[in-house]
């Protein structure tokens, strides 16, 4: 049971993230929702690589046969975090521009052209 708690946290984070994206009306809050969703996925990746009782996969100062968690998911998570930073920066700068045009961050301000 205790081993499943990270997966429950993953599910919780993803649901909170989606809820925030879907139902919050402030653009900044939507961006926060995306970040939470991303954290959920990253946590899932990290959890996959963990073996019970393992240590961090560091070569220096550890014996070669020590039980280590898998390094590949951590590398993947890191890549995902880097991409997340780029996406976050882009979204925030677009929000700055939207605010300049409308003076508001309400989601209904960015309406479509078909209405």
């Amino acid at each position, binding site marked *: 049971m205790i081993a499943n708690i990270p997966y429950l946290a993953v599910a919780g984070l993803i649901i909170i993230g989606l809820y925030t994206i879907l139902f919050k009306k402030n653009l900044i809050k939507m961006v926060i929702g995306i970040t939470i969703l991303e954290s959920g996925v990253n946590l899932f990746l990290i959890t996959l690589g963990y073996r019970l009782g393992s240590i*961090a996969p560091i070569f*220096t100062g550890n014996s070669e046969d020590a039980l280590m968690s898998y390094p590949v998911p951590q590398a993947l998570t*890191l890549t995902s975090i880097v991409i997340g930073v780029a996406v976050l*920066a882009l979204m925030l700068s677009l929000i700055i521009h939207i605010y*300049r045009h409308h003076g508001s961050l309400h989601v209904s301000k960015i309406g479509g052209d078909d209405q």
Partner: protein
Amino acid sequence: MKGMSTIVKTIANISFPIITIYGLYIIAHGHLTPGGGFQGGAIVASGLALIAVAHGSSWIESKIKEHDLSLFESLGALAFIGLAFFGIIFGGVFFSNFLVDTSMLFGNIPVGGAADINTGGTLPLMNFAVGLKVIVGLFAIVLVMALATHKKEDSS
């Protein structure tokens, strides 16, 4: 945006070199311990962001231009790609780690749990390149965003 009080400025000035050295340490030991170009670069950039907040973005703007930052960003990226291209020339494959097992820089092969800093082949060099790009890139983002909000305040 104006700078903050003298206390904040002084503390920021004192902590900035410590943060920078810590970040550079993380970059330099990327191939041995957790960390690397991005993580260390983010730490250094956060130190720069601290300075930007403490002294105000207009003060920073008078010292550094965003235009010059993009030059260093390109240089970092070019160094990274260039190393990958050198892999074709010296190692026969793109991204080949051609420095490993040579007597050159970072050429040692680690032995049993005791890797020294002179290992890793091209990896430390790529970490430096990425580190440069991330320091400059993240700082440029922070600076541009600070200036963008600051211009808005001026006009309203």
